[in-house]
């Protein structure tokens, strides 16, 4: 690979980051009820340990992990448990949630004595991360302690922090890197403490030279940590593409990063690891970019998990114009919302409000076989052909043509000149096949 570290394929969409990149992170104090869905992560749902009417404090555990692959949930305000009932979440499902009425006092629990990283054993670090309810905050929500417990810890050679932030419009990771880079480096050191043979990599896209300089300065005396500059391209932050760009190793859909000796964590996750291990604080906040051309004052907020999206929009000055499309997350991989009445969860990186809905404005027409999707596909498959197979319902053909290798990044739909919903077709076919496999 000559030149910059990158991968083949990918796209360069309008990045929209200028809207919010220079807006410092500010705190939001929620006023309404806070809603905590019991499934904010991959794995078993959490189990409530509070009852209606209970008084809770900020930082108090309200739901216990439902298994090893699961994560506990903590109250982020003080108040009274109002109900435990289904509540609509970002993906559109109604999920059992704990609702807490905020008393506005923000009384906190005592987090106990903190101690330096060196005083921790590996087991202690892992247990603290698990107890704090840390999950992958880039979007997937995979419990972090599971990720950090591979079968053979000695074979982990790289712990990578995903500082790419390749999704357009998102600036939350950028702000964290600019404002509290020591938390990222500190969190990475906590993870590195678990793996004796591992080196730490901070992988940043080259459109953030200020972050690169900051992180380099901060890690210049750290022998185990290097900052790597990646080419700016979407989806540079996709796990497989990131590992490939940073280490030259490639994994397919049947492998985990640990199979090639890598562990990848997102910026906000690493910051949460820092909080869990060195401050004894559970995961209660996340950084959310509220942006888009329909937002009056695009901002980056430190949001208490459970805060309603309505409040985020209010704090960002409301709408300049009623948006046609509201997306939780970035425009490439985020979830479109019916309305704003959903809570901020551990995995919500942004709230994007767009004046125009480009998708419904673009009428799909016939595929002209132009091959732009093939050029753009970072998974190096043939999206146009896979979508055709999906339309026909040909599951065997779909698998034979490597349909399961798709990471649903959305590049094919983005570039398609015929505006065909390729990602959507491939995604639904993958879901059906995965469901079939689970049945067996």
């Amino acid at each position, binding site marked *: 690979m000559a030149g910059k570290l990158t*991968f*083949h394929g990918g*796209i360069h*969409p*309008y990045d929209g980051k200028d809207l919010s990149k220079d807006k410092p992170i500010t705190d939001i104090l929620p006023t309404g009820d806070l809603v905590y869905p019991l499934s904010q992560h991959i794995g078993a749902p959490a189990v409530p340990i509070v009852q209606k009417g209970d008084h809770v404090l900020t930082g108090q555990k309200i739901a216990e992990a439902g298994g090893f692959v699961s994560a506990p949930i903590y109250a982020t305000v003080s108040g009274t448990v109002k109900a435990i009932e289904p509540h609509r979440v970002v993906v559109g499902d109604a999920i059992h949630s704990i609702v807490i009425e905020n008393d506005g006092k923000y009384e906190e629990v005592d987090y106990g004595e903190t101690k330096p990283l060196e005083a921790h054993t590996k087991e202690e670090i892992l247990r603290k991360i698990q107890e704090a309810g840390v999950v992958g905050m880039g979007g997937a929500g995979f419990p972090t302690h599971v990720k950090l417990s591979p079968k053979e810890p000695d074979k982990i050679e790289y712990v990578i922090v995903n500082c790419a932030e390749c999704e*357009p419009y998102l600036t939350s990771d950028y702000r964290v890197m600019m404002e509290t880079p020591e938390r990222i480096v500190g969190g990475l050191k906590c993870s590195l403490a678990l793996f004796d043979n591992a080196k730490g990599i901070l992988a940043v896209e080259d459109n953030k030279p200020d972050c690169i300089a900051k992180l380099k300065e901060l890690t210049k005396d750290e022998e185990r940590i290097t900052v790597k500059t990646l080419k700016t391209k979407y989806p540079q932050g996709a796990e497989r*593409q990131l590992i*490939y760009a940073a280490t030259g190793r*490639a994994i*397919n*859909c049947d492998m985990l990063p640990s199979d090639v000796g890598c562990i990848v964590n997102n910026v906000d996750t690493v910051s949460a690891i820092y909080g869990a291990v060195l401050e004894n604080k559970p995961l209660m906040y996340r950084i959310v970019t509220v942006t888009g051309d329909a937002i009056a004052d695009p901002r980056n907020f430190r949001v208490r998990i459970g805060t309603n999206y309505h409040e985020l929009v209010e704090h960002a000055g409301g709408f300049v114009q*009623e948006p*046609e*499309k*509201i*997306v939780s997350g970035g*425009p*490439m*991989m*985020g*979830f*479109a*919302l*019916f*309305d704003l009445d959903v809570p901020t969860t551990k995995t919500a990186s942004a709230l*994007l409000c767009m004046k125009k*809905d*480009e*998708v*419904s404005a*673009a009428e799909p*027409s*016939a*595929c*002209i*076989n*132009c*091959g*732009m999707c*093939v050029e753009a596909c*970072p*998974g*190096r*498959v*043939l999206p146009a*052909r896979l979508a055709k197979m999906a339309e026909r319902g040909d599951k065997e053909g779909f698998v034979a*043509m*490597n349909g399961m*290798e798709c990471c*649903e990044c*959305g590049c094919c739909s*983005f*570039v*398609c*000149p*015929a505006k065909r*919903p390729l*990602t*959507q077709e491939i*995604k639904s076919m993958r879901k059906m096949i995965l469901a079939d496999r689970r049945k067996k």
Partner: protein
Amino acid sequence: MSELKKVSSNPHVRSFVTTNKIMLCVIAALMPATCFGIYNFGLRALFHIIITVLSAVGSELAFDLICKKKITIGDFSAVLTGLLLALNLPVSAPLWIGAVGAAFAIVVVKMLFGGLGQNFMNPALGGRCFLLISFTSLMTNFDCDAYSGATPLAALKAGERVNVYNMVIGKTAGTIGETSMVAIVLGACFLLLLGIIDLRIPGSYIVSFVIFLCLFSRHGIDPDYIAAHLSGGGLMLGAFFMATDYVTRPITRAGQYVFGILLGIMTGIFRVFGAGAEGVSYAIIFGNLLVPLIEKITCPKPFGRGGEKR
């Protein structure tokens, strides 16, 4: 916020490139060759172009109306087919011939197979070959006001020397749009710069054809001979504008090289060993027929299974 917003699967943004923008760019890229054709052969060439394009668009419109389908002429692909076919007509042919050819190209080759994107053969070339077979003498008579006698390739085949300089510039007999290598390559560069086409097919086509000539033409490495072959007989028009037709070329990267090489070899066989002097059109439509097979054997390896290195 009373009403519910529209939701859709990711991604929520789309690029600005659309099918009709691509078609318009290709049409624009053909303008140098078109203008040179009109300059070279006179106003009659322009009439040919207008009639053929109108017939192509009219046939598609009529087909859509008769079959009660959505009107598809807005994608400009019929204009492109008509233009490409017109550029492949000899100027001396009767003016109705383009109309017949375009109607055949649109209705039989394209629309009957399901319209844009579904045809397995390049419509313009399908139309041209239909005309070549049906009206052979009209389609192979290159006598006109500007030039008389055979095309340079026919002369070359008969063992005569040809003026290579005139061939590169395009001041020779031939079909309306094929004569000027300079004009065609100029347009092709425009498409290459925009990324609408790439060099995989044209490059492998031209290179393999040149190698074939060197090996089998009994002229050895004769620059004049090779240059004459490259600039004559619509090879450039075929390589850059017709072999690269999205619909009828393989979608796989490896397949595109295979396709180009196959075209180079077939064109070589037709020109060197065949009875006629030309062979680009037939080579490309035969190549089109092999596309499903080529795609099957060149399905790429995905990322993480060896495909990540390109």
